[in-house]
């Protein structure tokens, strides 16, 4: 195939509407007679509702209806958890879309006010009278695991599940290790903060008995299935549309109470119903990420070989399970081998209920936790042995010829060359010189640190056997009669740029201009069933589905072309957008199927010469499409039209990797850490669009900076959310990050024909430990070996002043 677009820095086709303010996010979709919902949410983290009086609110100006938990209890099913069944003995509390008698986190919806406009609905919320009886609040995950009052009396304690995983005899391996290092590690709770908060617009048509529901989601099809079950509408009467989606980061990979409620209310009132989340609601009641507190034990020998690793972790699940809540810590367990050969690994998870919003998938989803643990472990080993952190990493890497590499967590890493990515990063950073500079800086009393992280991540989720609701992805590709190509993908994007990257793949395969390809996504009535965009899967799984659909389509087009060109047994071949007999001969000659005649020197082989009788006899695939639709002259028995679908089921995950190197200098007087350098070498396999890959890496690194240095969802001891607005929750700003120095190595995956691995989460996975390692390295002269995140200037200042 002529390679014109794949691998090039192609500008995005989705941008013109976005940069002119003409795109349509949920709140930009306007329907006549729309009613607006505002929720009353619990002001207590844990309480019994003894009474609710909505009388005054129901009679307020503009109010159409007020619904409480009693109104919907028998009508709308509970918020689903996909992990129920996958985790043995998992306790699953009944998560009602509106609380009835028991509220278990601040921000939990209690009542929905429907009014003619948002202002009226908001006014009326204040007129609802709720009597609460406060109950003991469970905030601290470790204390909650130890005992004390149970949030759900029927369970007797706050343990949602316990799970042990891993291979090898960790006890024996630790006992025979020359050194064992222990460290308590905290992964603070984070808020995903997609810049567009969530929002829903539901329109039920009583005559047609059909519903259209616009929602800011990463998974329109999975959501449709769940909502149909929750509100009792046939799935084929429910159309879910993910319009322009303003960021997700996992927070919109879920099924939320508000989505079901809006649909149900629309069915009650027969009108379009809209709810747009405020940022305060977003931080209270959209899923959080991370929230693991645990104890690391790592064994090593004096030569730096890591012998065993154990992670005993308390996972702060929050009060309820959202879609994937209890599954996230299990992903941490899968990735505890990191980039290293560790013979024995064990994770012991205690999933704990607390009076907080649920944790769930936030960019990386369990893997940033694993990478952080392993990469901190590598540095702890280096510190213990007085080795260079780089040497510890090299010592434990599997070699390129050891792939597929089996870990003691039960995975097979598909392909990798960890040493090459590390070497390139070291070269770019000029590592040895940096270490010399550091010596000089220290001699001058400056506080400078260098941090390294060699990560591996698990992407392209994934084989269906490992997924709660299918791990495949779908595509349909059509060539319309005018030659324009329509691509339908189940991988609905929310900023990743699939309208461009998928079009690049298709345009190259078909040998046509990019402008002739349109990628449609996010509408369950237009697009065949799909899974969605998360887990760095869109290109590796969804793009591959597109690739195979195009190959199928080309096969049919080739049969039609052969028929039209009167090609006999030799058939036609496809080259640069055209089918021809000449190309078929050239191809078979190139493939060595035609025996090469012995020719005098200087004379070209016969197969490569144009045959006079077929000169000029070729047909473009776009012309074939017209013939396929007119259908007057098709091969006998062939179906008209030119369309193909493919549902791609991957045989394995992919495992992208890389090395990030960070240089920081700390201000002795303020404790502020300033980035001097940020070098990142990522290997995500083959790359469709380097521009988009860079964008993904940049964004991920800055989110990682947020976790390492600024961000934390804080609840006080009464379970009140202290960081409830963007004035309190510190999302990184432009002036906080340095200019990144990026490069890539390229190790294709054998898992898909595109060789692509995925890159969406690399930054949040690889960068966090690199930054923390740099700060810890800077403070090593103060006797520091570990600091918990977020590492704020105050923390550093206190260490320096001690």
């Amino acid at each position, binding site marked *: 195939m002529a390679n014109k677009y794949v691998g090039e820095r192609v500008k995005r086709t989705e941008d013109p509407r*976005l940069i002119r303010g003409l795109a349509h996010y949920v709140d930009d979709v306007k329907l006549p007679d729309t009613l607006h919902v505002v929720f009353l949410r619990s002001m207590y983290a844990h309480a019994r509702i003894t009474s609710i009086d909505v009388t005054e609110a129901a009679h307020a100006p503009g109010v159409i209806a007020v619904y409480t938990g009693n109104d919907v209890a028998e009508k709308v099913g509970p918020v689903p958890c996909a992990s129920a069944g996958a985790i043995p003995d998992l306790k699953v509390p009944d998560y009602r879309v509106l609380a009835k008698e028991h509220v278990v986190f601040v921000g939990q919806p209690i009542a929905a006010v429907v009014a003619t406009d948002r202002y009226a609905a908001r006014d009326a919320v204040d007129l609802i009278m709720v009597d609460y009886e406060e109950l003991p609040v469970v905030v601290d995950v470790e204390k909650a695991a130890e005992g004390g009052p149970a949030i759900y009396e029927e369970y007797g304690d706050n343990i949602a599940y316990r799970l042990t995983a891993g291979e090898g005899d960790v006890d024996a391996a630790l006992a025979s290790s020359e050194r064992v290092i222990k460290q308590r590690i905290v992964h603070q709770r984070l808020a995903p903060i*997609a810049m567009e908060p969530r929002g829903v617009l539901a329109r039920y048509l009583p005559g047609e008995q059909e519903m259209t529901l616009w929602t800011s989601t990463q998974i329109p099809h999975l959501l449709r299935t769940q909502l149909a079950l929750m509100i009792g509408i046939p799935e084929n009467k429910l159309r879910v549309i993910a319009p322009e989606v303003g960021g997700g980061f996992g927070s919109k990979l879920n099924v939320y109470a508000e989505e079901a409620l809006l649909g149900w209310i629309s069915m009650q009132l027969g009108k379009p119903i809209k709810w747009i989340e405020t940022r305060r609601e977003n931080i209270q009641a959209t899923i959080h990420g991370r929230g693991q507190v645990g104890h690391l034990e790592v064994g090593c020998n004096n030569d730096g070989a890591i012998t065993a690793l154990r992670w005993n972790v308390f996972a702060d699940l929050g009060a309820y399970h959202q879609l994937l809540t209890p599954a996230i810590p299990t992903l941490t367990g899968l990735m505890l081998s990191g980039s290293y050969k560790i013979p024995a690994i064990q994770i012991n998870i205690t999933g704990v209920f607390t009076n907080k919003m649920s944790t769930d998938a936030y960019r990386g989803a369990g893997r940033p936790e694993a990478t952080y643990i392993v990469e901190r472990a590598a540095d702890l080993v280096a510190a213990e042995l007085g080795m260079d952190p780089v040497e510890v990493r090299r010592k434990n890497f599997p070699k390129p010829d050891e792939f597929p590499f089996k870990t003691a967590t039960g995975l097979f890493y598909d392909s990798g060359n960890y040493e090459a990515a590390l070497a390139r990063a070291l070269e770019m950073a000029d590592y040895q010189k940096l270490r010399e500079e550091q010596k000089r800086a220290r001699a001058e009393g400056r506080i400078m640190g260098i941090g390294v992280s060699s990560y591996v991540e698990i992407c392209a989720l994934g084989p269906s056997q490992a997924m709660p609701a299918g791990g495949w992805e779908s595509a349909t590709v059509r060539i319309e009669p005018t030659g324009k190509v329509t691509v339908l993908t189940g991988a609905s994007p*929310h900023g990743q740029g699939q309208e461009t990257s998928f079009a690049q793949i298709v345009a190259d395969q078909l040998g046509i201009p990019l402008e002739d390809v349109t990628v449609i996504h996010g509408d369950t009535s237009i697009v065949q069933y799909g899974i969605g965009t998360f887990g760095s899967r869109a290109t590796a799984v969804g793009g591959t589905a597109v690739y195979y659909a195009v190959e199928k389509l080309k096969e049919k087009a080739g049969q039609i072309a052969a028929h039209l060109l009167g090609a006999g047994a030799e058939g036609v071949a496809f080259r640069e957008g055209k089918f021809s007999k000449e190309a078929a001969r050239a191809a078979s000659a190139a493939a060595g199927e035609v025996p090469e005649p012995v020719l005098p020197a200087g004379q070209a082989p016969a197969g490569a010469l144009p045959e006079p009788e077929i000169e000029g006899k070729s047909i473009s695939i776009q012309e074939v499409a017209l013939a396929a639709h007119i259908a007057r002259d098709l091969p006998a028995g062939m179906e008209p039209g030119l369309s193909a679908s493919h549902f791609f089921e991957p045989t394995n995950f992919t495992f992208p990797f890389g090395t990030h190197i960070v240089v920081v200098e700390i201000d002795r007087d303020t404790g502020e850490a300033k980035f001097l350098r940020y070098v990142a070498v990522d290997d995500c396999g083959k790359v469709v669009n380097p521009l988009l890959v860079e964008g993904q890496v940049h964004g991920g690194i800055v*989110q990682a900076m947020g976790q390492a240095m600024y961000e934390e969802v804080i609840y006080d001891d009464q379970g009140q959310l202290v960081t409830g607005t963007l004035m309190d929750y510190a999302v990184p700003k432009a002036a906080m990050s340095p200019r990144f120095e990026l490069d890539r190595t390229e190790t294709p995956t054998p898992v898909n024909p595109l060789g692509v691995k995925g890159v969406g989460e690399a930054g949040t996975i690889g960068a966090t430990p690199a930054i923390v390692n740099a700060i810890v390295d800077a403070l090593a002269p103060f006797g520091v070996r570990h600091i918990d995140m977020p590492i704020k200037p105050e923390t550093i200042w206190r260490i320096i002043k001690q």
Partner: protein
Amino acid sequence: MKRAVSITVNGKTEQREIEPRMLLVHYLREELGLTGTHVGCETSICGACTVLLDGQSVKSCTLFAIQADGASVTTIEGIAANGQLHPVQEGFWEQHGLQCGYCTPGMVIAACQILERNPDPSEDDIRHGLEGNLCRCTGYQHIVDAVQYAARKIRSQASGVGSQGA
């Protein structure tokens, strides 16, 4: 209760009767249907709602519409003149300065303001100039590149050298 306001938005003077408590961003989005201005935080932090009010960039989520009575407002829809992308918009496209696009209208307006105040800003100037605007997708580097692209293009246009931006 309602008050009459007259606000010139993107060059067109609009008269409306509105509640005094109506926020400027809701006036633009709901009354005028200009949905390019977004709401991201309601607290003046994220900048998704940034518009120009008499030439000054402001957060329209924390201004009442009546505060703009008699004033002139430019929204993202008014940035491209005669269908031609503004150099800042062009920069965002060329340099991949956006992913999900939600912060982009506010970013573009803020960038226009930066360049109006300083046609030749350093990278530091740009990063500090964007402190009132949050982006969760891009990590800002390509946004900085976009503003630098626009600065070069505007300067070259001003000096009549042609329209080579990069």
